[in-house]
């Protein structure tokens, strides 16, 4: 009797569940776990970023095996030389110092390449539509007290709202929902936060590396009350940088993906094409903005506080 009642409730819920409406239009602000690797949950964004990383590393190894120190390089080497030179010139245009450029260049270039590739991966066909079952705790793995509580809830009352919620949750656990196996890493806040933390941490590192403990003077300045207050603002600013970096990149890329999904859902042919072009542009610009801001922060951190204020005033 209980089982029959429960089945009926689940059937009704499955028909009227508003979540079913969004099944063909899958939009999730969080990355979903697609498999577990030795107990470590691997989300679709991490899985995609791993593929991108393997591609970059594989390409680097392949390039190194074909690399020749010659004045007549192959087409591939010519292309890589062109990209590296353009990125180095970009770094040098900001630092105007070869020593600093050589120090910052690998990080800035890697930021740019890593972000732009992850942005563009989200635009590839198959990233989104290929679905797998989401990995999480199934009903069979629920704790015994949780199972007991749900059974008591069903037995002890009529079909009311708390029961519906619990049953729905249980039903979802028993019938795992389908999630995309690929997701652009930059459309996951965890990735953008990681990149932002690297950027801000390295800014502090380069500041200390170049100025020593004098770098912290801009955060702790007791020369005047105003300077002290400015120091507090500078400290807040460093944390704000992390949030700013992370949410700017995440927001732009995630919003772009949602836009593409919605446009494709509404009109599948031709209409999404301009939006794809726009997202290609946005992907490039966001990678450039992230790299450029990081570079500017690196450069400012390696200059004295007075010099920095002077430069900011000039700019």
């Amino acid at each position, binding site marked *: 009797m209980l089982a029959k009642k429960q089945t009926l409730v689940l059937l009704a819920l499955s028909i009227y569940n508003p979540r079913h409406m969004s099944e063909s239009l899958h939009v999730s*602000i*969080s*990355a979903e776990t697609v498999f577990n690797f030795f107990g*470590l*949950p691997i*989300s679709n964004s*991490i899985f995609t*970023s*791993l593929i991108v*990383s393997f591609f*970059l*590393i594989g390409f*680097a*190894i392949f*390039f*190194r095996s074909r*690399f020749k*120190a010659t*004045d007549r390089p192959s087409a591939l080497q010519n292309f*890589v*030389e062109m990209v*590296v*030179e353009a990125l*180095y010139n970009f770094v040098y245009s900001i630092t105007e110092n070869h020593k600093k450029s*050589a120090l910052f*260049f*690998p*990080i800035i*270039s*890697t930021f740019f*390449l*890593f972000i732009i590739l992850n942005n563009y991966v989200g635009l590839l066909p198959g990233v989104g539509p290929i679905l797998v079952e989401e990995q999480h705790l199934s009903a069979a793995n629920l704790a015994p007290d949780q199972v007991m509580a749900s059974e008591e809830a069903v037995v002890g009352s009529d079909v009311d709202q708390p029961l519906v919620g619990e049953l729905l949750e249980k039903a979802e656990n028993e019938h795992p929902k389908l999630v995309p196996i690929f997701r652009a*890493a930059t459309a*996951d*806040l*965890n*990735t953008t*936060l*990681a*990149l932002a*933390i*690297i950027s801000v941490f390295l800014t502090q590192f380069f500041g200390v590396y170049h100025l020593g403990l004098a770098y912290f003077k801009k955060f702790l300045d007791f020369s005047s009350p105003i300077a002290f207050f400015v120091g507090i603002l500078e400290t807040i600013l460093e944390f704000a940088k992390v949030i700013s970096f992370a949410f700017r990149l995440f927001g732009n890329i995630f919003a772009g993906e949602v836009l593409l999904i919605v446009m494709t859902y509404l009109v599948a042919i031709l209409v999404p094409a301009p939006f794809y072009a726009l997202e290609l542009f946005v992907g490039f610009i966001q990678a450039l903005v992230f790299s450029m801001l990081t570079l500017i922060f690196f450069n400012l951190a390696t200059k004295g506080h007075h010099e920095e204020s002077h430069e900011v005033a000039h700019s």
Partner: protein
Amino acid sequence: MDIQLAQIIFQIINFGVVLVALTHFIYKPVLKLLNDRREKVTAAAEAAGEVMQEKEDLERVRENTLLKANQKAKKMEDEIKKEARTQAKLLLDQSKAELTAREAKFSTELVKMKKEELKRMEKEIKVAAVVIAEKVLDESIDAKKHQKLIDQQINEIIESL
């Protein structure tokens, strides 16, 4: 949005690995190559600059040498012209002197020849006069014939001259 520390750490490590790989396999060799090439180009440009400088110096030396040679040639030309003019004048003077001397000598010889000729004519006229006189004496002829005889003898004398 669920922020998971494990995922953040994983992505930091992931980025670090990519950074190391790209730096080791791409950035370092390519930047070294580009630097070497830049140095080579700079060295070549400097060498080209030196060669250009050397060429300009040589050009300047050539122009100076040419100028000096032209000046020298001009000077030599002037000297030669002057020398030629002097020589020509000298030769002219010598020729004139020689001519004058020859004229004088010729005049002297002419006068001498004239005197000798006159002497010879005088002698022949004397002989002819004697012959004419003999003929006039031998043949008594009239004045007209006499005159004709004299003219004939004179003509013979002139033709014999």
